[in-house]
């Protein structure tokens, strides 16, 4: 069964490119170019995965997630953006996206990322992994829940390997773990990224009125 995917991006040229690159790997059931278009479309089509641009003409990607998530809890979001600004990425992840990849990703990698998100796992690009390591520096003063505000040494190891360009399979081999365990470490990091009250994360979230 091919995954049912909705694309949300306001650049037609880019949408056409993504459709062509994904080819037969997934079934693109619909596409939208704005928040106003995307919200009813996603509610109607109820796809498995929504590929979401961070910036749209009438708002940002997290607005769509916030509007859809309550009605369609089964829909999973994967952010796809040219923006490297940390606050943009963090806003959409904290709103509930299961991952973030940059627009330069190849078609095969994107298809793999969609599959991973559809099965409930998280997808981190090397850049996002590097950023999370930076935001969760060890030794920083934390005031909130220690379980949510700190990464375990193992999670740091996994993230560092992602940042160095290792795939889950390679990480598993190198750390003598199963791929499933690596996936669960990454999912835990995603949960911390979404729920932590760490200063760096909270600041960006507040600026974007998420909390």
């Amino acid at each position, binding site marked *: 069964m091919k995954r049912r995917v909705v694309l949300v991006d306001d650049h037609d040229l880019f949408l056409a490119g993504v459709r062509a690159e994904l080819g037969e790997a997934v079934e693109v059931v619909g596409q939208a170019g704005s928040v106003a278009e995307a919200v009813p479309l996603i509610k109607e089509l109820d796809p498995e995965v929504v590929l979401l641009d961070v910036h749209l003409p009438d708002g940002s990607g997290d607005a769509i997630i916030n509007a859809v998530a309550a009605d369609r809890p089964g829909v999973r979001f994967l952010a796809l953006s040219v923006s490297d600004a940390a606050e943009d990425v963090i806003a959409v992840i904290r709103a509930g996206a299961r991952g973030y990849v940059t627009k330069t990703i190849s078609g095969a990698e994107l298809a793999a990322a969609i599959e991973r998100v559809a099965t409930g796992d998280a997808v981190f690009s090397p*850049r996002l992994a*590097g950023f999370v390591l*930076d935001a969760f520096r060890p030794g920083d003063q934390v005031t909130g829940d220690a379980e949510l505000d700190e990464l375990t040494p193992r999670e740091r190891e996994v993230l*560092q390997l992602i940042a*160095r*360009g290792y795939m889950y399979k390679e990480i598993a081999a190198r750390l003598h773990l199963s791929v499933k365990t690596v996936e669960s470490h990454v999912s835990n990091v995603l949960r911390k990224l979404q729920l932590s009250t760490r200063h760096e994360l909270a600041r960006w979230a507040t600026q974007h009125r998420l909390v």
Partner: protein
Amino acid sequence: MSLRTFAPSSDERVIAGVCAGIAQTLGVDPTLVRLVFALLALAGGAGILLYLALWAWTAGKRVWVAALLAFVSGVALLGALGLSDRAVLGIALIAGGLALAWRQGGSFHPDAPLSYGGIGLAALGTVVLLSGGGTSSALLAPGAVAGALLLIGGPWVWRLALERDVERTARIRSEERSDVAARVHDSVLQTLALIQRHANEPRRVASLARRQERELRGWLYADQPLGDDSASLLAALAAAAGDVEELHGVRVELASAGDCRVDPPVSALVLAAREAMTNAAKFAGVDEIDVYAEVTEDVVSVFVRDRGAGFDRTRVKKTRRGLVESIEGRMERVGGSSSIVSSPGNGTEVELRVPRSAT
């Protein structure tokens, strides 16, 4: 706001709203304007006439009635200040002449046509004034003349000042725009021109585009000066990655945690990383290289990784300067270290480290 477009204020009016209107236009307290008019009213009723004149002008657009009233008001004022009839006549002539010149010449723009009649009238007034002004009151007259001239010239000075302000804002804006334009020209436009010239070479076009993207991104999101590669570790690494992409047609994915200033050891680290990227691009036979930079409190690390051919360290000739000299030797000289993990078929990862300097 221009002085010519003020309208009586209906919200705050006491009589016809003229004072409140003026106050609104000038941005001052209405009470102050009312006080000035009250004082002028004591000067032979000039204030009352002036008020009527302004009201006639704004309410009914009866320009000639307004002009006449204003004129009479001016004469009454000057008379009340103790000027001789001759002086009053002179000043009246000057005022009339300048008013005529103003009407004709618009807002005193250098290229607007001037009314020679108006200027002639003003000149005649000056002659009348100077030939007889001193006879009545030697002390009061010069002050009164100055005051009168200020009344006539004031609005112009005011207007000129306003225009200069507008001009300055516009100039600042256009300077900012030309600054951005210069940066965009030096980078983005040059790249676009190069892309057009190399339209038949997809690898070169892709690497040009990626290099430009990286540079623009650094400027937009990380406040790195466009085209300044020495600003920080990340800027320097990005520039090195861009060079390798351009020279060898590979894609370099750059990730990072933290950033730092470039000091000599970090500079050596960047050069070694560049060499590692070049080696990967030349020998690994892949089109993507991953680079990760990590800055912690006491060490700066860079990892350069490819999934390519790999090699057997024992078989690399001692004369291969790239590995021994440009990477290992360079790192040792600045007190850093390097390790190279590779085996045939499993790709290569080069790890480079330098301790962070005490500063």
